[in-house]
């Protein structure tokens, strides 16, 4: 006689799987400080872990301590924040649109935020990040809404290619406008040249600190609504039959995406592919459950961006490759893989 697994067996297996996931997540979280420390040590000037500790506990004004406090630590902190924010934004977008290509970079959200920041700085003369982060939010929201409107309306529904095309078009438009503004503002161009490619270089505490609360709030909010995101990802009909108000939760998720992507762009520039790659890799590891994808994406995104930035600034002698470029080298092949193997084919 074949013994069918009883209800309690299934529950026990599920609990065991949950326990494994929890311990992996805890391990990843514990890795964060180690990776952050390693990243602080990378760069032109060799820095030992002891320097990092003493720079904070016993600051003596030496060159190494100043570099640790004003250059390396803010840079790594910016990477952690932006990485986590972009990855979670991508995960939520993928759940909302049910589109494997959804991510702040491909869907024009980053370009919208970047354009708004450049406009605010150039035309309105805003230079405090506390002020321009709001422009970043507005730009991210408008661009995202435009891409959704272009890509998802119509009888045939949102095909992956249609949304990607809409995103590419909006991005091309906004990038051209941004470049036009920068051509006339040479001082700003010099200031933002690397930022527009997505870079963590030259971040200082005063530019990061005002943005940090928004990203933290966005991450916490994403964590608390992860059950609702899971329901959203089942599609609008299922979500409604489960008693979820699609409009309310979609709207709320949209606000979270804007907070996260806008915040990330204001500190790191339009870094692409984090929001695409991280949720996919996480999904391969933990399955399709967004209750797990969201926390895992946050940690993995932070790790990925910090490592990519450290590699970018130490791989080539004396050259600081913007993290947006490093991410493109990692992310574009992954995108091609998705395009070739993971997307439904249409004639």
């Amino acid at each position, binding site marked *: 006689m074949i013994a069918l697994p009883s209800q309690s067996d299934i529950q026990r297996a599920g609990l065991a799987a949950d326990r494994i996931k929890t311990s992996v997540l805890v391990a990843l979280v514990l890795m964060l400080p180690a990776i952050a420390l390693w990243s602080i040590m990378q760069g032109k000037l060799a820095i030992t872990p002891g320097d990092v500790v003493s720079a904070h506990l016993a600051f003596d004004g030496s060159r190494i301590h100043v570099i640790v406090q004003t250059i390396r630590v803010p840079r790594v902190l910016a990477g952690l924040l932006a990485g986590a924010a972009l990855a979670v934004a991508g995960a939520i977008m993928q759940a909302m649109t049910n589109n494997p290509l959804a991510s702040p970079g491909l869907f024009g959200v980053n370009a919208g935020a970047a354009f708004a920041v450049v406009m605010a700085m150039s035309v309105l003369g805003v230079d405090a990040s506390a002020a321009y982060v709001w422009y970043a939010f507005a730009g991210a929201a408008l661009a995202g809404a435009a891409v959704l409107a272009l890509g998802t309306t119509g009888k045939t529904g949102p095909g992956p*290619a249609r949304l990607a095309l809409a995103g590419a078009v909006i991005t091309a438009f906004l990038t051209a406008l941004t470049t036009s503004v920068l051509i006339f503002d040479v001082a700003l161009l010099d200031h933002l040249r690397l930022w527009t490619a997505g870079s963590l270089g030259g971040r200082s505490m005063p530019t990061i600190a005002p943005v940090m609360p928004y990203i933290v709030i966005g991450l916490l909010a994403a964590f608390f609504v992860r059950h609702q995101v899971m329901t959203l990802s089942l599609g609008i009909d299922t979500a409604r039959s489960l008693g979820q108000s699609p409009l309310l939760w979609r709207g709320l998720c949209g606000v979270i995406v804007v907070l996260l992507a806008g915040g990330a762009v204001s500190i790191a520039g339009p870094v692409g592919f984090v929001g695409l790659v991280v949720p996919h890799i996480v999904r391969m590891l933990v399955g399709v459950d967004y209750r797990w994808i969201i926390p895992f994406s946050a940690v993995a995104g932070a790790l990925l961006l910090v490592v990519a930035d450290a590699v970018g600034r130490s791989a080539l002698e004396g050259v600081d490759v913007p993290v947006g470029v490093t991410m493109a080298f990692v992310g574009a092949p992954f995108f*091609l893989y998705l395009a070739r193997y993971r997307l439904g084919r249409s004639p």
Partner: protein
Amino acid sequence: MKRPLLVSIAAIVFLALLGMAFGDHEAGVGDLLRWWWHPDAVDPMTLTVLVDFRLPRIALAGLVGASLALAGAITQAVMRNPLAEPGILGLNSGAALAAMVAIVMIGGNSSFYLSWAGTAGALAMVGLVYAIAWRDGISTTQLILVGIGLSTLAGAFITVISIIGNVRDVQRALIWLNGSLYDATWAKVYGLAVWMILPVGLAMLLSRELDLLRYGEDTARSLGQKAHIVRSGLIILCAMLSGAAISATGIVGFVGLIGPHLARATVGHGHARLLPVAALFGAVLVMAADFIGRTIIAPAQIPAGLMTAILGTPYFAYLLWKGRNAVV
């Protein structure tokens, strides 16, 4: 057929006259006419401005626009997709990357040499796009997505080159990259014109094949077309046209989309009529973009490539919106 031709030729002449008359230096066609009759009555400075700066710039804008629009018309026919555009397929960024390598890494200067580099880059990119998108046949979705992905990758390489290259070369390359007609010379004009003769001639001769492609591979084959050979040949023509245009001026996007579209709206689908009208429309577009770009906030100049992107993307969005009920 005659009307659109006449209108676009009139527009080209008008834009050429405008382009001659506007700029930092006071000069116009009048000076040129006066010089024709009385060579001494015009100061050499004015003559240099007109003959060595403005005229080649106008001519180059026209040629680039024509070849980009032709390339776009061919792409749309081959892919049987009205949203297909050389830029979307990654052709532009492939050409840009190759030319960037040629300028910064090798120090290539002559425009003929750059044409080869650009064409090679565009061809390599098409090959790569097809190779990656190919899985027992080609689907448009995959082609478009792979094109977007590879363009991003090429863009990343361009950024890396611009970081590690010699600053002077990089600056030159970046100005060129944004689609600038700033340093147009007669040498470039002749280079591009000579280069274009072969692909333009072949495209015109193949206009019937292009018509057949529209009905789909099976129909075309049953009407006696060797579809694969024709397609590959046409894509090579396309890479020659856009590769050379891009090497001459950098990335001037969306002309390959808009030119053929407007032409199709006016003269219909037959390629024997579509191709010349598209080429003329393309010329008008780039000439107008360059003229607006260099006069709207003079003395500063917006590169023509940025102008066509700013004007072209809304048009693309409109097409996407209009076709929202169709399968991509």
